[in-house]
C-alpha cells in the first residue's frame, strides 16, 4: 500500500492503525519502519479488605512529622 505525504508531511495510516495509537518511527536508510507501542501493563497496588473506621482516625494528622525538627534551630 502506498501512502502519500501532504504538504505538511502528514499521511493517513491504513487500518488496523487506530486513532490514538502510538508508533515508534525508525528510519533505516530509505526505509521508515513504524512500530506500534503497547501501553505498559498497569500494576495497581491493592486496598485492604478490612478498611479502617474513619472515626478511629479522627484527630490524627498523618502529615504530622514522625521526627519533628527542633524549633529553635536555623540554617548555620
Amino acid at each position, binding site marked *: 500500500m502506498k501512502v502519500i505525504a501532504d504538504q505538511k508531511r502528514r499521511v493517513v495510516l491504513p487500518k488496523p492503525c487506530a486513532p490514538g495509537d502510538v508508533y515508534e518511527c525508525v528510519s533505516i536508510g530509505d526505509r521508515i519502519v513504524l512500530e506500534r507501542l503497547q501501553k505498559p501493563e498497569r*500494576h495497581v497496588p491493592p486496598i485492604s479488605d478490612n478498611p479502617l473506621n474513619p472515626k478511629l482516625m479522627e484527630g490524627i494528622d498523618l502529615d504530622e512529622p514522625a521526627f519533628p525538627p527542633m524549633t529553635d534551630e536555623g540554617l548555620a
Partner: protein
Amino acid sequence: MKALLDTGVWFRRYHGLPQKSSLTEFLNEEVTEFYLSNLSIAEIVFKWQRGRLPSIPDPKDWIQHATTNFIMVNPTTNASLQAGLWKREHGDLVDRMLAAIALEEGLTLVHTDKVLKNQTGFPQKYFPNAG
C-alpha cells in the same frame, strides 16, 4: 504519570480512609506506575510503635500486602545530600527525602501536606485532605 506516594496518601488509600474524589480519580486514571519509599514504612511504624496511631493493626500483619505492586525507591547518596542541603524551612526529614527522591528519579510526589505544597524545586502534586 509515575507517582511517588507520600506516606499519608499511601496509608489512607490502603486502609480505605476518606480522601478527596479528585485524588481518587487521579490515582485511578492518571498514575501509570506507583512508587513508594521504605522511608514511608519506617515513618508509619515509628508512629504506630509510639502510640500515635492507636487504632491501627500491627503493621507486620499488613505492610507486605500494602506494598504489593509498588516500585520501591530508596534514597541515593545524591538525593540524601539534596535533602539535607535544601534551604527551606520545612524540616520534616522524611518529606525532604521524598522530595529529593522524586527530583532525582523523575517522579511526581503526590501528597496532602499543606506545608510541603509551598516548597519548590521538585515535581509535586498536592491534594487537600478530605473533610
